[in-house]
């Protein structure tokens, strides 16, 4: 049952002045409404929604990012090049393998290093683990409660114990995939610039493979569950930007920059041609635009729109069952695309483990730098394309850094979606509570990672 339109959410009792509403007049044309959500819940980090309507017209609309500024780009300066992934993974607990991956790739580009095939395989396996972990967390813990009309996953432990146990089982498997490669999921240990300091034992890989195969049943159940939910309808002409690995696989680890409005590939080293940043006062995270549109979207739906033909057949089958077809311009279907990718990651991880077992893993010496210079790297982390760029001085210390975070790239686009959504909700005669819930659901559909987004910056290269 879809609880999204039931308007059953009670205003939250809180020590903070959280939600405030005044509503006067009758009928949309006369309507004055104020929506203030302080600290949107079930998202990573601190964000506020503010909407003012006067006579039915939007006079003010903001997704304010009130996360503390953290200054990672600044304090990377002066640290040794080898520390970059271990520092930047601390930007975010949810995406720490993703930051590690973009960081090692950028640093290897800056230092002229080419890592072994085995290193790339191990990184990809950890990366699949994190996609799984993040998507399962978002789908079950952050998004599903809206559809079942509850405030969190906790009451579901009583009302739907099988659903919660399934979610926990899949999350645990995802964490174990990361741990077998990197030692742990949050802030992985063994993934370094130049190579890995740990090689998984065959028996650990075989055990993982067995559990991944068993997870297919859980995936099928998950697809059935989501095929019964009806996300709100919102369509808006949107540019979807992602990496694309034209000759290879569905882009997570590698690729060039493409979009639904410009399919010509731009290499990651020239990312500034496709991503233009600006500082806005209501957000400690910068906003981004592209050369083609004032706002654009990144994330699972962007990847699906650009790369769906490269999905594993099982994932394409799931998309069919879920009714997801490219091009899709409903941001609420980012959840659906995440689920399709979850299927892809499980199947791809199984194939990758098979390849590792056939090949045999052995301890390798890390690759050494061949030069000190400047380089960029990117990866398609759970919330979209992530760029890291570093400059390393001749003393081996980091001299400059630039990090462009998926959530930062989405913020302006979320605001545009809200602008499109509010008048339609007024027209449909929604109450203030219904509008608030749908705006929060929209923000959650993007699965924002606000801690991540508040550390990027303008860089003046020294």
């Amino acid at each position, binding site marked *: 049952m879809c609880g999204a339109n039931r308007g059953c959410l009670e205003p939250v009792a809180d020590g903070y002045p959280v939600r405030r509403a005044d509503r006067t007049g009758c009928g949309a044309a006369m309507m004055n409404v104020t929506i203030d959500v302080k600290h949107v819940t079930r998202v990573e980090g601190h964000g506020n929604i503010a909407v003012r309507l006067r006579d039915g017209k939007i006079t003010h609309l903001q997704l304010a990012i009130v996360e503390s500024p953290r200054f990672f780009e600044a*304090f990377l300066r002066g640290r040794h090049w080898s520390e970059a992934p271990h520092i930047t993974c*601390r930007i975010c607990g949810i995406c720490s393998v993703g930051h590690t991956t973009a960081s090692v790739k950028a640093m290897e580009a800056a230092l002229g290093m080419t890592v072994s095939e085995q290193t790339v395989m191990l990184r990809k396996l950890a990366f699949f683990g994190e996609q799984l972990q993040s998507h399962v967390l978002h789908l079950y813990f952050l998004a599903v409660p809206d559809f079942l009309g509850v*405030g*969190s996953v906790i009451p579901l432990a009583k009302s739907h114990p099988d659903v919660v146990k399934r979610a926990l089982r899949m999350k645990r498997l995802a964490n174990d995939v990361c741990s077998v490669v990197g030692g742990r999921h949050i802030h992985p*240990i063994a993934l370094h610039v130049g190579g890995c300091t740990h090689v998984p034992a065959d028996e650990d890989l075989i055990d993982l493979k067995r559990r991944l195969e068993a997870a297919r049943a859980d995936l099928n159940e998950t697809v059935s569950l989501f095929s019964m939910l009806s996300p709100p309808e919102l369509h808006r002409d949107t540019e979807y930007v992602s990496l694309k690995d034209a000759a290879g696989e569905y882009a997570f680890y590698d690729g060039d920059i493409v979009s639904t409005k410009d399919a010509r590939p731009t290499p990651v080293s020239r990312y500034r041609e496709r991503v233009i940043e600006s500082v806005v006062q209501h957000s400690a995270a910068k906003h981004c635009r592209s050369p083609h549109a004032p706002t654009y979207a990144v994330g699972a739906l962007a990847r699906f729109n650009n790369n769906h033909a490269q999905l594993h057949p099982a994932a394409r089958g799931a998309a069919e069952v879920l009714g997801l077809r490219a091009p899709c311009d409903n941001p609420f279907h980012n959840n659906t695309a995440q689920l399709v990718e979850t299927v892809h990651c499980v199947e791809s991880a199984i194939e990758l483990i098979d390849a590792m077992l056939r090949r045999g893993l052995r301890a390798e010496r890390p690759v050494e730098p061949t030069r000190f210079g400047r380089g960029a790297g990117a990866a398609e982390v759970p919330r979209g394309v992530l760029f890291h760029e570093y400059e390393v001085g001749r003393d081996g210390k980091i001299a400059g850094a630039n990090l462009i975070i998926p959530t930062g790239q989405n913020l302006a686009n979320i605001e545009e979606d809200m602008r499109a959504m509010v008048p339609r909700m007024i027209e449909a005669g929604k109450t203030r509570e219904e509008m608030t819930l749908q705006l929060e659901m929209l923000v959650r559909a993007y699965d924002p990672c606000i801690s991540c987004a508040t550390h990027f910056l303008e860089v003046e290269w020294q």
Partner: protein
Amino acid sequence: MKPKIAIFSLTSCEGCSLAILELEDQLLDLLGAVEIVNFREGMTERAWDIDVGFVDGAVSTPQDDEEVRHFRAHCKTLVAIGSCACLGGINTLKHYQSGGATRDEGAAHAAGGNGRVAEYRRYVYGENAEWFATTPARPISAVVAVDYQLPGCPMVKEEFVELVKCLLIGKPFRLPETAVCVECKRRGSRCLYEMGIICFGPITRAGCNAICPAYGSKCEGCRGLVSPDAIAAAGINLREQYRVDLNEALADLRLYGAYQEALLP
């Protein structure tokens, strides 16, 4: 009645809050024993009658300062989780930018002393740096009284479960008072310090089961110093065995808690 639990985040990656969700196998047991009443990252409801509050993140903005006092006022027991909340964590690295060579100088720069906006703020936000308020990064114990600390980056999940059990049955909880090396030897990992790598295992508080050396990486000291004396002994050893300047080693040790420099000789 089940104890009411809250989980809060200040300036951090929220990885320690996430680590609670990553308890997975034990999460349902935990939910059977306690009632989570306030957890922004995971739930919509937010209540303020709280028995035990867990806080990750450092105090690094005027807002953090206000919030942590609010948490303290509403929690009977307050627990700092992770290196940011316990030691200031990786956030303290900003103090060493803008020519701040010591903790106090760095803190003064962070505060924008002498009417200046610290250089690192301009580096990130350009000419609009003043829009984004920041203060020196501090452990929460620098602002409010803290009842328990669970250091580590991220915190150790098993230690969290242990503390919750102790609180439930009223048993005292103590952090280990031995160095990471003790656990590393017990685990049988190869000694990185003996291989010439400056591993902080000898001076760092145990409790992580020496996980980093077990995965081939040096201990970076994320759980903080095991005792103030340890570093003096390590300084002598580093000089004599490896001819390493203690200042260089200290720069590395700042990674997870420059705030500890108060402990240093």
